[in-house]
């Protein structure tokens, strides 16, 4: 066991213990750690965004490379602040409209292909296609049935009776299975965060373990 002499590690370790103290009950030490975390994070992000966006992407290219096209973007960016004042608010809509229009223009084709068309193609597949194993065919059928049943469950313009009722109930089962899988993965993720903190306290702070 070799306790760390690094000030940063000590700050991290004491901060971790302070946050853990909330598990016992709300207390001033937890509050202090929480406020320090929020303050430090806000400061870090402000500097990172300002440096990466304003300095690296705007000021340097404008002054050292004389890329004067950036003035156009700079004016549009500055106009965003006009939305803060009631009298100038409508002028602030111009950069927003520009941003929405260009964003939609260059993002929609890719999103449509990846998140809609290819997903539909992936859902409706031939389970009996050549070369498929029985397991793969079953997977294809389960995916198709799951999508259809879930869509029927969310179709509210038909009465829940007869076939619609049964299919809709099957849709609920598929949804529950999905929620269960998500919950299981969430538990795994949260336990990993705890493991990460313990590893930090044991290995980096107290010098226990490999």
């Amino acid at each position, binding site marked *: 066991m070799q306790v760390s002499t690094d000030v940063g590690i000590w700050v991290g370790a004491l901060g971790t213990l302070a946050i853990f103290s909330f*598990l016992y009950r709300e207390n001033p030490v937890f509050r202090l750690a929480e406020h320090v975390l929020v303050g430090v994070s806000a400061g870090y992000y402000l500097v990172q*965004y300002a440096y990466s966006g304003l300095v690296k992407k705007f000021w340097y290219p404008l002054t050292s490379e004389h890329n004067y096209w950036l003035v156009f973007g700079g004016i549009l960016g500055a106009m965003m602040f006009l939305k803060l004042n009631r009298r100038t608010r409508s002028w602030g809509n111009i950069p927003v409209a520009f941003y929405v229009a260009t964003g939609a223009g260059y993002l929609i084709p890719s999103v449509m292909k990846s998140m809609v068309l290819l997903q539909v193609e992936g859902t409706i597949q031939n389970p009996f296609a050549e070369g498929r194993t029985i397991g793969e065919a079953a997977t294809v059928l389960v995916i198709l049935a799951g999508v259809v049943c879930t869509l029927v469950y969310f179709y509210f313009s038909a009465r829940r009776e007869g076939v619609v009722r049964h299919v809709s109930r099957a849709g609920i089962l598929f949804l529950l299975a999905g929620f269960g899988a998500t919950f299981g993965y969430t538990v795994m993720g949260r336990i990993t965060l705890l493991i990460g903190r313990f590893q930090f306290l044991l290995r980096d702070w107290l010098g226990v373990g490999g």
Partner: protein
Amino acid sequence: MSAGAGERLARLDRRLIFLLMGLVVLVPLLVPIDLPVVVSEETRDFYREIESLSDGAVLMLAVDYEPDTMAELDPMTLAVLRHAFRRGVRVVALSLYPGAPGIAQRLLTRAAGEYGMTYGEDYVYLGYNPDWSGTMLRLGESIRATYPKDQWGTATRDLPLMAGVDSYEDVDLLVSINGSKYAEYWAAYAQARYGQRMVSGNTAVMAVFIYHYYNTGQISGFLAGIRGAAEYEKLVGLPGDGTIAMGSQSCGHLLIVILIVLGNAGYLAARRRGTGGRA
């Protein structure tokens, strides 16, 4: 279970559960448990993609996560870097999250040091770039224009590795390690738009959303949370934090299952007695 026992269980002090969880996670870290790791097909595909890269191939590594998900994703990033460097694959790393540069630098320096890699020739770190969607698209046109300088201010065109690498066409595989929906966006903007082959490493919470993209072939393989990291470490043959965490992970899961069963039994017993009960 009797109704009395059910009520007592329902009124159990939650701090006792926190303490129990803390102990079952802590003890296996102090006394490691060697549990078998069964490799899933998606992890095997992830491994195959990197294993298929030849000496000198270019791997673009997007380190898109911040300190809150380091415990899950650091083992993946480190294993990918070790795997790539061991095979002589060159790495172009970048980040689209403002909190990522510190993490990426630490892991790159560590893995490069282990394999004697030289900055600028074997690997580069381009740093953080704002506007994630624009960056993902623009990298398909010109990496050097999107990132004129690397993280330390060196002109990208002056880095030997970047001399022949300027768009997705020059990248053999994209690896996105992320704790958000970035894998889906890389799939939309780099894979669907430019045909860039890609794999991803995700937090467990996000893994359920990746199956759609894996199923449609947009993402060729993926790692799901710490389990995926442990599986990948096993395939690479370099056990790391992912493998170490599996003992605590399994004990934690067992406790959760026991608590869910007991909680439901207690709830049902209390309800049968007609006294309600907290679920």
